[in-house]
């Protein structure tokens, strides 16, 4: 028998997140292609959705 709670599971689209930044190991920060810090572009972070409360839900159960 399927556990009761799973009766309320719904499919969700898993977005193919393409982050326009990469990790710079020496700076220990993510940087944009032009060298600026990713965190300097707040609009981009917001659009990427990587800071939201569901961003880590698949791997962390406390978001």
């Amino acid at each position: 028998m399927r556990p009761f709670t799973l009766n309320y599971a719904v499919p969700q689209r898993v977005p193919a997140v393409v982050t326009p930044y990469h990790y710079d190991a020496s700076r220990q920060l993510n940087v944009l292609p032009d060298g600026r810090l990713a965190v300097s572009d707040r609009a981009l972070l917001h659009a990427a959705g990587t800071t939201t409360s569901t961003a880590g839900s698949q791997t962390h159960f406390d978001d």
Partner: protein
Amino acid sequence: MTVLILTSEQDVTADMVVAQLQERGVPVMRLDPADLPGKAVLSADYAHGDFDGHLSVNGHVLSMAGLRSVWVRRPGEPAAHAAEASAWLTAETRQALYGMLYSASTRWMNHPRNADQARYKPWQLRIAHLSGFAVPPTVITTAPRVAQQFAEEYRDVVVKSASGPPPDDPGLALPTTLIGPDTDFSAVAAGPALLQRYVPKRADIRLTCVGTRLFGARKRAAPGQIDGRYGDTGYHWEATAVPERVVKSVHEYLTLSGLAYAAFDFAEDEEGLWWFLECNQGGQFGFIELETGQPIAEAVALWLARRTPDRRLPESRR
């Protein structure tokens, strides 16, 4: 003295704090336990009645004697990126890394011991009771008859997962869902069900706590909206004042749980009362800061950078 941040490389919320620390000239080491062994290297010596340990990654080196604080942000599983990854290697690497860190004298946000306990939602409800929060009546049960009786008593109840969606199926979400007493509860026998009285809400509240600093944020709820995490309502998060009664309860909760960081979720009802839903010991704050402008990353950085323990707080929250 160095701040150690345990998180993945892709974690841009951690970037917000790293940048704040670097602006203040505070040394930082950012490490994903998944990169140990391999990209990261560890050595700890327990000899002659003394202890020392070292971590290195990407050219950065940290001695346990120079460890200022540890932020457990979003660490990967130890050894997850190892060439010969296995459950055994993860267990061995966890022993080496966290055993060494526990041996050092440092401040934690949050200590894994407290974080592990704080993740249990039923335990959260009990601590919320003891802290004086308004908590919706809740039952977690594997008895269909108990679930049925609960639904008949409270009529409108929600079902929610205690642990989140199935981790092995990223294509599934488990939003909090409204159900009624006519529901067939027989499947409750196949797995614990967490049922809670539905709180008709006019807003969602996210209260982020960093040490003793509180950042309240509020987002209007759409009519009939159940789970604020799903669906775009067109409303945005805005900074909001925290009622004095809630402030007192939050400080009590943090004392009882030993947490230095926490993100509380409340439902604000039509009378303006904040109902406790849950407390996420590692809850996201990036989206709140981006929408409200509240300086949460700065508060985290200042907490991590502090050299002297706050004597007003219990040891686990220093």
